[in-house]
């Protein structure tokens, strides 16, 4: 336990990643799975190395990153913003919430043609898609989080004539922070998916383009390559959000610590 705990955090996912590659390796070897269903790992590895060395992968990665990040930022901002409006105003909630929920249930792919006509087939339309998919988790978690602010704390501030803006900024927002970060984490995966779906609809570049054109060209290895890259981008993004979460919402992980030992560490014996 103690030694394990001392390892840097990035070791663990690597271990489980290796396990998966191992299973994959074994599966390809043992069951003679045809290439076009599941290519062997070394093929994909070769492909990745070559792609990075000759630079052919960078434009795809870049395009997907730009779309994802652009849409993520805008979509999250919109989700949080509208969440704030709706949580603060009963009227907004009554009129808008059901509509937004309905809109969210509409598959973005069905809206594709309209989005393409309105936003063109360039980066803009993909960003719009990403915005649409990231929006909802942020929106719901923001409303939900803001609503959970402790009434007693709010009252304490109200007693000092706190304005609505003050209550919002200094009480509700910090109370909701953790839940908003949860939304940001969900959003990052959805943003990537949104970008890829956008690239499926129309594109010349991007990992989504790579994957779907590989599927038409029956290049299983390229498909897996694209999928892997997407997974890695998603993991990095999620890890960044998690780290930020821990630092920003420092007051919620207040496990009491005494100097020499951490309480929870010891307790495990008993809890486990």
């Amino acid at each position, binding site marked *: 336990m103690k030694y394990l705990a001392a390892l840097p955090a990035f070791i663990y996912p690597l271990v489980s990643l290796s396990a998966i590659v191992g299973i994959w390796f074994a599966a390809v070897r043992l069951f003679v799975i045809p290439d076009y269903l599941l290519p062997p790992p070394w093929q994909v590895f070769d492909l990745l190395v070559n792609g990075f060395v000759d630079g052919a992968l960078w434009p795809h990665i870049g395009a997907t990153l730009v779309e994802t990040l652009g849409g993520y930022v805008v979509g999250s901002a919109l989700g949080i913003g509208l969440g704030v409006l709706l949580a603060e105003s009963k009227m907004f909630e009554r009129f808008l919430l059901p509509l937004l929920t309905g809109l969210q249930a509409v598959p973005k792919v069905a809206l594709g043609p309209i989005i393409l006509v309105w936003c063109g087939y360039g980066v803009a339309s993909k960003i719009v898609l990403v915005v649409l998919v990231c929006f909802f988790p942020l929106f719901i978690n923001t409303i939900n989080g803001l609503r959970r602010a402790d009434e007693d*704390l709010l*009252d304490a501030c109200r*007693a000092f*004539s*706190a304005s609505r803006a*003050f209550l919002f900024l200094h009480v509700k927002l910090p109370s909701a922070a953790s839940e908003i970060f949860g939304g940001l984490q969900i959003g990052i995966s959805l943003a990537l998916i949104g970008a890829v779906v956008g690239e499926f609809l129309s594109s010349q570049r991007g990992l989504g383009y790579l994957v779907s054109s590989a599927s038409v060209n029956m290049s299983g290895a390229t498909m897996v390559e694209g999928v892997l890259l997407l997974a890695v981008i998603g993991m990095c993004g999620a890890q960044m959000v998690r780290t930020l979460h821990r630092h920003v919402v*420092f*007051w919620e992980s*207040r496990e009491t610590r005494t100097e020499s030992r951490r309480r929870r560490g010891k307790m495990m014996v008993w809890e486990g």
Partner: protein
Amino acid sequence: MTAANGRAVGGPVLEPVPVAFTAENVSVCYQTRKGAIEALRDINLDIMQGEFVAVLGPSGCGKSTLMKIAAGLIIPTSGRATLAGKPLDRPGRDVGVAFQKPNLLPWKSVFDNVMLPALTLGLPRAPAERRAMELLALVGLSAFSANYPAELSGGMQQRVGIARMLLHDPQLLLMDEPFAALDAMTRETLALELQRIWLGQRKSVLFITHSIQEAVFLADRVIVMSSRPGRVIDDVPITLARPRNTDTLSSAPFGDACRYLRGHFQ
């Protein structure tokens, strides 16, 4: 009962002393899933400008509810409450509140928690900061100004709440068992400090406590409430000379007042 205290019961009023807070036939019913709870019934109460009123009453009789009405946080189910003559439809700006629970913001340091009224009321920053440091010294927490509430003991948190209440130098102080979690010495020190502040600036105070001695020691008048639903069952003027000190505690009138009040609780 002295003219200085602004009470004008029975005698002719020479000079109308303004009221800080009044409650007229105030009743409060809470709605719960298990039916309504009648917390206060027909409360009538005036606090004059500069008057120190203590409230005694059994647990659950509605003292905190009364204080929340004065703080503008609860609207009575029936009856009327006013603050400095105006109907109480929002929290007053010149009011300081110390709650029964500390109610500190967990994401703000002790210092920032004390600074809260400066932010909400838009006071100039520099003098407020100076005053916050003074108040933290007053309650013995200078060393903890950068710590977070979760790193404090219960009594320390309560003291932060007291410092916060005083930051904007409010005219009316509402204190809900402010010294309950404090040891005897800190309690005495803070009681004397409170008296000093009150004497110096003639604030109005609504002071809820469970300690009969504390009530008698500090107050001009002690209100006694019945158990739920809370009604005012006695209103005892305390005419001990000011400033009161440790000698007061052993004086005969002090003992008499305490004994009289204790009669309500036996």
